[in-house]
């Protein structure tokens, strides 16, 4: 059976940014998912984080037209990442324990609930939280 894990928004966004330092590692995760070699789950907040990241990019560069952002968001939906709800109380409980925001904690809570790892490309989050949450994995650490 293929490996099951949570990819956070930073990992998926990094896979779409050719000049991001961890692009190559993030892309490997996305390609493994495309090849059917990985089962990916995420909390229901993921599509909105992807939307706001691409919207931020649209504001930054004129090369990225609104139609490009719309097309990319549609293609991200075609990935059919399994989206699961996480109770807000659980997110807050994990946020208190790990010292992160509830937005980050949603991913950690889902990973704990599903007994899988969560991959992040968010360096600050990883530095701050990895010592307190053993399920948080750095994007460049291969499984």
């Amino acid at each position, binding site marked *: 059976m293929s490996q099951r894990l949570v990819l956070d928004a930073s990992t998926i966004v*990094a896979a779409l*940014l050719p000049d*991001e330092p961890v692009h190559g590692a993030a892309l490997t995760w996305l390609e493994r998912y495309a090849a059917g070699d990985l089962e990916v789950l995420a909390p229901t907040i993921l599509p909105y*984080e992807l939307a706001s990241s691409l919207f*931020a990019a649209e504001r930054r560069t004129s090369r990225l037209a609104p139609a490009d952002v719309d097309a990319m968001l549609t293609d991200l939906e075609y990935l059919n990442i399994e989206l699961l709800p996480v109770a807000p109380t659980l997110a807050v409980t994990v946020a208190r324990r790990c010292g992160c925001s509830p*937005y980050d904690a949603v991913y950690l809570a889902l990973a704990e609930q599903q007994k899988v790892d969560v991959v992040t490309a968010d360096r600050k989050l990883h530095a701050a939280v990895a010592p307190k949450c053993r399920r948080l994995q750095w994007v460049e650490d291969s499984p």
Partner: protein
Amino acid sequence: MGVLTVSTKEAARGLSRLLRAVAAGGEVVITARGRPVAVLGPYAGLRRSAVSRLLARSARLRGLTLRETYTEARRDLEKRSVPKARS
């Protein structure tokens, strides 16, 4: 496995059989009033082509890193929603 063409009525009646045909590598064209209107095909190909299109478009994101995209989007959100720690 080739292309199978079926009417709407046949598709509705025999969807499980058509899904087995797709799983075996085929594609099914569904017609309505004799005209082809839809294709039933393997999902795996759709995911792979979505990834290819995403990567082709990602060239437009050259020069940007997580800092200007993901981190900035998070900052926009969190500066409004996370209260300062109580003293």
